[in-house]
């Protein structure tokens, strides 16, 4: 290769090593709350180094293509990533992961086209096909995960009879086409393989729904990492192998950690059906002769104002209503009256793990007041009021008590152990999982219907007046 400047292949590899070290340090830093911000910066540094050296050593003839592609990419990506509200973050991760998978697929396909006239050796063929298949699965899977989270299509699991058989057939078809292509390199079968892999990606994502979707995105993230690593083998490029493998391996572990945090096994998630198929005892209609107690803001405000200890339990409803600032204001007003206030954070409240921490931190809630699940569960028995703001599944006692419930086994916040439970909810509709919550009908529960932000604003006024 004759680049803009000459860097020997050894030199290039040495610089790639520097960049690889940056990626390892970035992942390490991103796993600790104290250094997470440095992690992202170190990752960027590694990226800049690797991209710059690659740009300098390559044939500059087509630099205009690269410049145009990068320019357009940046113009599209920056505003999208900046302007989408925090509630849309899981979707954004999904879509930016999907395009990475798409790029990996396009690269392997193009390299195949490039080599086809001179013949493609079997080993390279296998590498190309792996990158193409996994990249396509990641692309279409992420696109559908995006559509689910963005509510372009239903967020619930989509199931049909024989679904696993169909997915199995698609999987076998990918492998079979792969073997055919390696034996007799042709363009037709490779395009067919890409299409089947795209269909398989959709097939894998359809039955996964509800709160499982972020775990699925993590799995697809890991897949994209592997596709990138495979492209590294295709192009004999060390940095792609290192970075892709790091993401593939850490992504796989992270996927497991995320599903563990929800008390769900990974096969369980992939096979899907969460909250879709009515499991035994799950389909108790909300209006089955049970009554709920709904209160008005003045009553609840008074209850809060004369409590000793209040735990605020935020959920997705708080995120949707962008109510985090009002929630923190309510906490301050209560604290001003001598009430002890803290926030009980379920690790998967909202639609991504850590969602609530992010929102409350944005609203300047003191870090010390954010109680993790175990800590909060120690405190509920001595809590006067558990104020549940737009959360449902993560406080549903069925996860603890009802083995027939689809969410059985998920660790929950034991709000039912508090003396009083106040739910701020838009309606009696069940949560993201589609599972009804018996706690809503408990005599010690009071409901305040309405948008979380409006309800909290009313409560702030009521507490001030009390």
């Amino acid at each position, binding site marked *: 290769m004759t680049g803009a400047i000459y860097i020997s292949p050894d030199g290039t590899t040495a610089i790639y090593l520097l*960049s690889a070290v940056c990626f390892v340090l970035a992942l390490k830093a991103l796993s600790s709350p104290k250094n997470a911000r440095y992690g992202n910066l170190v990752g960027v540094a590694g990226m800049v180094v690797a991209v710059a050296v690659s740009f300098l050593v390559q044939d500059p003839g*087509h630099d205009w293509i690269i410049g145009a592609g990068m320019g357009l990419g940046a113009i599209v990506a920056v505003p999208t990533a900046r302007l989408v509200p925090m509630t849309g973050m899981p979707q954004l991760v999904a879509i930016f992961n999907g395009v990475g998978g798409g790029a990996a697929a396009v690269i392997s396909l193009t390299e195949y086209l490039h080599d086809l006239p001179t013949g493609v050796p079997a080993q390279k063929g296998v590498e190309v096909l792996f990158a193409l298949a996994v990249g396509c699965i990641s692309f279409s899977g992420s696109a559908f995960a995006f559509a689910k989270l963005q509510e372009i299509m239903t967020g619930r699991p989509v199931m049909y009879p024989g679904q696993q058989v169909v997915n199995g057939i698609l999987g076998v078809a990918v492998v079979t086409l792969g073997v055919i292509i390696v034996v007799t390199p042709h363009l037709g079968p490779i395009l067919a393989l890409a299409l089947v892999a795209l269909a398989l990606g959709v097939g894998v994502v359809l039955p996964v729904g509800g709160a499982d979707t972020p775990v699925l995105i993590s799995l697809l993230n890991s897949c994209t990492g592997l596709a990138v690593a495979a492209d590294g083998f295709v192009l004999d490029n060390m940095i792609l192998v290192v970075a892709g493998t*790091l993401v593939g391996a850490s992504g796989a572990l992270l996927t497991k950690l995320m599903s563990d945090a929800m008390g769900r096994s990974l096969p369980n998630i992939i096979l899907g059906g969460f909250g879709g198929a009515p499991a035994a005892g799950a389909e108790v209609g909300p209006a089955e002769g049970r009554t709920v107690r709904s209160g008005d803001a003045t009553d609840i405000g008074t209850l809060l104002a004369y409590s000793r200890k209040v735990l605020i339990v935020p959920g997705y409803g708080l995120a949707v209503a962008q109510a985090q600032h009002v929630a923190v204001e309510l906490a301050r007003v209560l604290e001003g009256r001598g009430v002890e206030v803290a926030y009980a954070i379920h690790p998967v409240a909202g639609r991504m793990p850590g969602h609530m921490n992010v929102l409350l931190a944005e609203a300047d809630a003191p870090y010390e007041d954010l109680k993790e699940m175990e800590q909060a569960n120690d405190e509920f028995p001595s809590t006067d009021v558990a104020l549940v703001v737009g959360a449902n599944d993560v406080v549903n006692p069925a996860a603890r008590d009802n083995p027939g419930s689809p969410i059985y086994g998920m660790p929950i916040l034991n709000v039912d152990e508090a003396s009083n439970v106040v739910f701020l909810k838009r309606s009696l509709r069940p949560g993201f999982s589609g599972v009804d919550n018996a706690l809503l009908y408990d005599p010690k529960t009071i409901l305040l219907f309405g948008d979380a932000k409006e309800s909290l604003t009313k409560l702030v006024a009521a507490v001030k007046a009390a």
Partner: protein
Amino acid sequence: MILDAIDLVVVFALAVFLGFEVISKVPSILHTPLMSGSNAIHGIILVGAMVIASEAQGALQMSLGFVAVFLATLNIVGGVVVTDRMLDMFKGRQPAGRRKDGKDGPTTSAAQGQSEPGP
């Protein structure tokens, strides 16, 4: 490149262990930022996209090269910006009062020290 396939296999195998090891102690609140951060890192596929774009022969390969560079840039830039926005929410939290992963006991005093008097 001067690497043989076997060198890459060695690199691959070591990177698998490193990938597992390096994030094994992540607390749950950082699951999503970590996912987003590693999402940005696989945007390094841009390097591969640049290689195929620079070697492209004919309009088809050049178009595919352009598409690959475009998609990979979306991955990098989008991934980094989203991660940055997520992590932005963690910054500037009273560094003095921060304890290990919030694993402190009841923090009544800290909570009240932080609160503003009600109007």
